[in-house]
C-alpha cells in the first residue's frame, strides 16, 4: 500500500528530457506553470497542453505512469469541480432544489480540472526525469544569488536532499512498525474514527523515536566527514548546460508567448 506512492519518484532513462540540464528543466517547468495560469481560454490552455504532450513524448515515459501519479489527487479534483459546478453564477441549465448547474460553472470547473491535471502531470514529468539529488543541486544554484541577502540556499538544498533521501527509508520503517504492531494484535484499519486515530499512536511514537535517532546518527556521520556547510564545498557532478538546453528554453518561451498573445487578444476584443 505504502509502496504505491509514485510522487517524487525518479525513473532513470536516457531521453532528451532526461539529459536536459536540471536548472533549465526547473525553469521550463516554472514557465509551463505560468502558461497554465495565464491561459484563460480553452485555446490558450490547449497550447499549453500541446507543449506538455510534446515534452512527454520526448521523455519516452509510459503513459501508465502518469495515470498512476494522478490517483492520489482524484478526490481533490472531484471536490473542487463539484463546488465549482454548483456555486458559480451564470445561466442555469438544470436546477435541482437549491442547486443550479450553470453554463459558467460547467465551463470553469472543466477548466479547473484540465488545469489541475496538467499541473500535476507537468511537475511529475520533472521529478520522473530528474534525480532528486540533481534537482536539489539545481535549486541550490538557482537560489544562490539570494545568499547575498542571507538566504540559506545551501542549507535549504541540503535539507531537501536529506528529506528526499529518507522518504523511502521512513516508508519502509513505517511498514515494519505497522507489521510489528499488527503482530501484537493492533487494529489499524477498522473501528470508529477515534479508535483508529488512537491506533496510530503505537505507529507514530516508534517512528518519531527512530527518526530522531537517524537524525542524530546522520549529523554525527556528517560531522565526522568534516561537513561545515556550503562554503567552499565542491560538487562531484557539476551541472553543465549546452545548446539543447537553451533551445528547449527558447521553445518553451515561444509557447508561453503564444498563450499570452491568444489570451491578450481575447482581452483586447472584450
Amino acid at each position, binding site marked *: 500500500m505504502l*509502496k504505491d506512492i509514485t510522487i517524487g519518484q525518479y525513473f532513470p532513462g536516457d531521453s532528451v528530457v532526461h539529459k536536459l540540464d536540471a536548472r533549465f528543466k526547473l525553469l521550463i517547468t516554472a514557465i509551463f506553470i505560468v502558461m497554465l495560469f495565464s491561459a484563460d481560454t480553452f485555446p490558450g490552455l490547449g497550447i499549453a497542453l500541446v507543449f506538455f504532450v510534446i515534452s512527454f513524448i520526448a521523455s519516452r515515459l509510459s503513459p501508465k505512469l502518469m495515470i498512476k501519479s494522478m490517483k492520489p489527487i482524484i478526490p481533490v479534483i472531484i471536490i473542487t469541480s463539484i463546488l465549482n459546478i454548483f456555486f458559480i453564477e451564470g445561466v442555469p441549465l438544470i436546477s435541482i432544489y437549491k442547486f443550479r448547474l450553470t453554463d459558467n460553472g460547467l465551463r470553469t470547473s472543466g477548466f479547473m480540472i484540465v488545469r489541475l491535471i496538467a499541473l500535476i502531470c507537468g511537475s511529475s514529468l520533472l521529478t520522473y526525469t530528474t534525480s532528486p539529488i540533481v534537482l536539489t543541486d539545481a535549486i541550490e544554484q538557482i537560489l544562490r544569488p539570494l545568499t547575498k541577502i542571507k538566504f540559506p540556499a545551501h542549507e535549504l538544498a541540503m535539507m531537501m536532499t536529506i528529506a528526499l533521501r529518507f522518504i523511502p527509508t521512513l516508508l519502509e520503517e513505517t511498514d515494519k512498525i505497522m507489521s*510489528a504492531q499488527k*503482530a*501484537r*494484535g493492533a487494529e489499524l484499519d477498522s473501528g470508529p474514527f477515534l479508535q483508529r486515530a488512537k491506533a496510530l*499512536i*503505537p505507529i507514530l511514537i*516508534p517512528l518519531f*523515536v527512530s527518526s530522531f535517532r537517524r537524525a542524530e546518527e546522520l549529523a554525527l556521520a556528517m560531522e565526522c566527514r568534516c561537513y561545515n556547510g556550503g562554503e567552499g564545498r565542491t560538487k562531484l557532478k557539476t551541472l553543465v548546460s549546452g545548446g539543447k538546453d537553451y533551445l528547449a528554453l527558447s521553445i518553451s518561451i515561444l509557447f508561453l508567448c503564444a498563450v499570452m498573445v491568444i489570451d491578450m487578444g481575447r482581452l483586447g476584443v472584450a
Partner: protein
Amino acid sequence: MIRTEKLTYTYSQGTPFEKTAVDNVDLHIEEGAFVGIIGHTGSGKSTLIQHLNGLIKPTSGKVYIDGEDIHGKNVKLRDIRFKVGLVFQYPEYQIFEETVSKDIAFGPKNMGLSEEEINTRVREAAAMVGVGEELLDRSPFELSGGQKRRVAIAGVMAMRPKVLILDEPTAGLDPKGREVILDQIKEYHQRSHTTVLLVSHSMEDVARFAEKILVMNKGKVFCYDTPPNVFTRADEIASIGLSVPQVTKVFGLLRSKGIDIRQDVYTVDFAMKTIKEYLEQKGR
C-alpha cells in the same frame, strides 16, 4: 500444528522488480517443536515467517494453523496473530508506551483480557526474559539496548501464543547478551511446551538449541531435518554459502585427513565426548 502447502510469494508482481521470495514451500512443523530456521540474507526466511501469522497473504498456496486455513472465510486474522506470536528483527524499535509494563501489556490488552489477567501475564513474561520488577514502572526508552530487546520479546510472550516465532532475536547484541536471550528462549520453550521457531544466521546458535533445522535457499526449502542429519550434509550446506558450526568444520577436516570419526558433530560438548571415545578406542 503449522502446515504450508505450495506456499509461494512474489514481491512487486508485474513490475521489473519482480522477485519470488518464497517458492513452492511445503512444510509441516509439529506441535511443541523447537525449530531453527536458517538461510542467507534474501533466502526468504523472513518472508516465510510473516506468512505464518497472516501478515503477508501468499501469492498462491495455503497456510494452515491447527488444521485451519488462515485465509479461510470464517477465520479472523487477529485471532491467528494471538495464536502465532511473531517477534520481528530489532523488536525494540516497536516499543512506544510510557512504562515497560504498559508496553508488555499492549498485546494482552488487544486480546481483550481482564485487568488482573493482563497483570499476571505481564509479570510472568517479564520474569521469563529476566526483566526485574523494579524496571516495570520505568520508561522503556531509558533501558539499555539488550533490556529493550527483552522487553519487546516479553510483549509477544505475554500473549501466550501457541507458536512463538523470533526473527534474529540476537542480531546486534554482544556475545553475553546473545547467550542470555537464547537461554531464556530455550527455557521458555521447555516451560511452556509451545512451538518455537527461531530464525538465525548463526548455525552455532541454531545447532545448540533446535530440535529440527529448516535450511532455506533462494526461497526454497533446502532441507528440514534434525541437526545430526542436517550436518552430515555439511558439504552441500557449504556449497549454498552457509557455514556449519566451527566444530563440525573441524571434524570435516579431520575426516579429510583420513581419520575415521563421525560427521554429525555440531556441539562442543558432543565433540569432546566423540574425541574422547575415539582416542580411547584407538588406545586399545
